[in-house]
């Protein structure tokens, strides 16, 4: 981990504050996130990501240094408001076009394997 910081320092000469890792993700934490993101990761991936994140999170956590309570967050770069469309029907795709990418279909519907979760 330390070698990353040394290299970065030498390349850019920025004073990257080397905070003590206050944020880290354990392998289990990463596994939980992978579950939320619906990605089945291998054990190796989970461990690697856990290690990588400790470094990355430290780097990105810098944003907290200046994100004071008096600063408004920006969600949109432009101050646009009230952009609408009229309630008019526009031609849809044909069912063939709609289903053209479907991995499986039946009776003009998308066929998916059995769903375990509740509606």
């Amino acid at each position, binding site marked *: 981990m330390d070698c*990353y910081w040394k*290299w*970065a320092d030498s*390349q*850019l*000469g*920025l004073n990257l504050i080397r905070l003590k890792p206050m944020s880290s993700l354990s392998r289990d*934490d*990463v596994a939980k*996130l*992978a579950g*939320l*993101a*619906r*990605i*089945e*990761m*291998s054990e190796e*991936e989970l461990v690697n*990501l856990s290690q*990588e*994140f400790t*470094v*990355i999170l430290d*780097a*990105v*956590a*810098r*944003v*907290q*240094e*200046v*994100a*004071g309570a008096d*600063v*408004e*967050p*920006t*969600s*949109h*770069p*432009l101050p*646009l408001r009230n*952009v609408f*469309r009229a309630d008019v029907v526009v031609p849809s*795709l044909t069912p063939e*076009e*709609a289903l*053209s*990418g*479907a*991995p*499986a279909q039946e009776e003009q519907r*998308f066929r*998916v*394997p*059995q*769903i*375990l*979760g509740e509606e």
Partner: protein
Amino acid sequence: MAAKLVAGETTSVALTQAHLDRIAAVDTDVHAFLYVDTEGALAQATAVDAKRAKGEKLSPLAGVPLALKDVMAQKGVPTTCGSKILEGWRPPYDSTVVANLKKNDIVILGKTNMDEFAMGSSTENSAYGPTHNPWDLSRIPGGSGGGSSAALAAFEAPLAIGTDTGGSIRQPAAVTGTVGVKPTYGGVSRFGLVAFSSSLDQAGPCARTVLDTALLHEAIAGHDPKDATSINAPVPQVVAAAKSGDVKGMKIGVVKELNGDGYQPGVRARFEESLELLAKAGAEIVEVSAPNFEYALAAYYLIAPSECSSNLARFDAMRYGLRVGDIDGASAESVMNLTREVGFGKEVKRRIILGTYALSSGYYDAYYGSAQKVRTLITQDFIKAFEKADVLVSPTCPTTAFKIGEKANDPLAMYLNDIATIPVNMAGIGGMSLPSGLADEDGLPVGFQIMSPVMKDERMYSVGAALEAALLTQWGAPLLDKAPIMGGAR
């Protein structure tokens, strides 16, 4: 080329065929293209020639061929976004950019290589293998739009479309010695642009000269009712600005924080020279400071992954794209999990997990929420800086093209490539990179970045054109003449 077409000295079919031949000659080495639409391109070219023969009034770029970054939907043509998860997918619709290209009768040669889902700075994250920099095939062409820029530098296409979320048009332009522009956010429609980070993404024009870039810019820009974030205002007069190249009296602001020890000496040298040339052309060089820029990288690597973790959720093997694991007894959930594990590459998965974390309850305020605040601060820095200068400038990126594989295992080091380009996306302003020369130590292209305020894109083109003209005079010939000649004559 357009002039030749208009003058009848050549046909679009001939032009298109010549480029297809060129691609066939060099692309095994460069690997800029993921898909060459030979039939489609020739059909388009034939149609344009027919229109011209009939005497129809055509747009300035009609009949000129173009390379399209594979992140833009083109009806009926494979669109993979550099990912296995979309291998073979043919969209049933055209993105608005493609619709505009077709309206202008520009011929689309094919789809170019990119970092998977636009995440990366080297095109090494493509699931289909990297693209090679025509200046030195062992080096990266930049990313995420390395394919488009390499195609330009290898003379496989005279025009290209890229997309830029943190520098993905500008940084490849810099390391390949070509021109690339990220318009003001909302200037070009995102409808049909496969989303990576919705509040940062923007499609933009790429070419070998500033004027060509301007012509392409006007062809693709404009309000789109299908994109609620597109600007409802006339397209900026960038062609006129590029033709005039007048910088007399303009204030050019050098951003203190976007330079310094971390930047390669050759990069800095070319930057200083360019400033001198602009001063000679009548501009006033001033120094400005943007103290919050040092937080831009951190904020970007929270916002972009957060938005992408949500944008990429739709790739779930249910309606389109890759599906694996659909065996007897498998559930939809397990098919989803397995497909995404196999279909997404390492960097994409890394960012999805990071984004999922940054948005999760209990962490939102510390990460995503704070990053959005940094964005506000960066925007304010720009506003203050633009009170002192008409445009801001910096080197496009800290180094020239590094070797393929050199930074592949070091995500943070890779991210540092975007340190000068990212602030532009955060504030939604316009940014251009054009070639400022070669670095002495390695003979590789260096880029000069120009930044203009929101909806004032024409300023970039004025300054860019002025610098380009001055440099051309200095070099005696276009920079790309110095690039290695591949596959016979261009």
